[in-house]
């Protein structure tokens, strides 16, 4: 191990011992890059200096958590996946009197609002409850506000149409200065809550779980653990949507998920598994 890798392991240890956040099962290459960005932005020189700061300076922690979790998404990211959800999964969900959806790792909320819009257009939103969770309180707060920059909004509007949206996306927001604010009504059936996939247990009984591009940051061990958590949280025949480049073939728990739409990485629990 070289000096920097040792420093990284000590940093991970310190975060766990001092603050209870456990990044021990995060994939190291991208974690190292993000931790080094923190070092650069805080002008600390080495990961060792960052560790010292995070141990002694309580007020510095939110910045570290925000830096490590780096939420990046867009509304209707990979629109073809949202199209597949609408066309193939919603008709099954429509057969339930009440629908529970869990978005695990919702970051700034881009995808949770995307989902709410498509459910609204499918006539399903009034009987749907969406739980949007993340372990980062700061981004949960941002997600709750539902405000995006006009610059981002242009891309989102294109994605929305490619995802099969029935109006124009501006139907759902109010533009003010350089920002757009999503319609308050979209939030009526969304509950934002703190949940940490690394440490917390079953969250709800869900018909659909969306967890896109979150498990890519986890080692095989933690990916398997979280897929087990998802299995235990889904109803029989429930759906799981992952990011469109995610591989789950190293996970033993993944065996109970059947490919539903392989290209869109949508899986379904087998008929004998689930609640």
């Amino acid at each position, binding site marked *: 191990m*070289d000096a920097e*890798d040792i420093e990284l392991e000590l940093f991970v240890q310190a975060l766990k011992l001092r603050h209870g956040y456990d990044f021990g099962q995060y*994939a*190291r*290459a*991208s974690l*190292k*890059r*993000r931790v080094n960005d923190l070092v650069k932005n805080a002008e600390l020189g080495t990961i060792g200096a960052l560790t010292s700061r995070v141990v002694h300076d309580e007020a510095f922690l939110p910045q570290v958590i925000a830096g490590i979790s*780096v939420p*990046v*998404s867009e509304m209707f990211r990979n629109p073809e996946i949202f199209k597949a959800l609408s066309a193939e999964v919603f008709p099954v969900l429509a057969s339930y009197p009440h629908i529970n959806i869990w978005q695990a790792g919702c970051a700034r909320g881009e995808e949770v609002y995307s989902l709410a819009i498509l459910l609204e257009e499918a006539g399903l939103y009034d009987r749907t409850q969406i739980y949007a969770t993340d372990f980062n309180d700061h981004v949960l707060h941002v997600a709750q506000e539902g405000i995006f920059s006009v610059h981002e909004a242009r891309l989102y509007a294109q994605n929305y149409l490619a995802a099969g949206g029935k109006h124009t996306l501006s139907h759902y927001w109010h533009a003010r200065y350089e920002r757009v604010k999503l319609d308050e009504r979209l939030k009526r059936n969304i509950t934002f809550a703190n949940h940490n996939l690394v440490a917390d247990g079953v969250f709800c009984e869900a018909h659909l779980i969306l967890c896109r*591009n979150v498990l*890519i*940051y986890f080692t*095989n061990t933690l990916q398997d653990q979280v897929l087990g958590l998802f299995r235990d949280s889904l109803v029989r025949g429930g759906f799981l949507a992952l*990011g469109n*480049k*995610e*591989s789950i*073939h*190293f996970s033993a728990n993944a065996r109970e998920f059947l490919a539903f739409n392989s290209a869109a990485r949508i899986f379904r629990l087998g008929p004998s598994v689930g609640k």
Partner: protein
Amino acid sequence: MSARRRIEAVVLGCSAGGVQAMLALFPKLSVDFKPYLIVVCHAGAEGVELLCEVLGRVSALPVREAAERDSPQPGVIYLAPAGYHLYLEREGQFALSIDPKVCFVRPSIDILFESAAARHRSKLLAVVLSGANEDGARGLQYVRRLGGYAIVQDPEDAAVPQMPEAALRIAGADDVLPLSEIATRINEFCS
């Protein structure tokens, strides 16, 4: 000439003009090519499936999209998927992230080069070809710092010279070669 050093992996970065360069380069790679070759090419938001197919047709080596969590196999060329950064983990498997763009691009050549350098150190060969931005230069600098070998396409020979120029300015190189000689050099190291 230090062509006797053992190379375990080759990483290659390119953007504008890069596809044409790879179409000229890959047919000349030896069928006895022993390491694996990992490519980041800024080819836009569309998938790289088509590019894999086109490059596979001219190359004696199989060309595939790098798949998350898989370990690269000897004698195979891998392309980074569109829209994700591609890393090589210390234990050797591929990993992806959607972290912010680096040098305005994702996938980033710097990210692939840095993580591959940490994994293979002096047994890594890194190649920078034609391209229109500075991506790859910092990564190449890190490759050289850890003892890896650097080949940069001669900017005069490149369809778009900015990327090899930036690499030479920031990282320098062990060899600066026209495209026609780069395959021969790679084969000396890798067969």
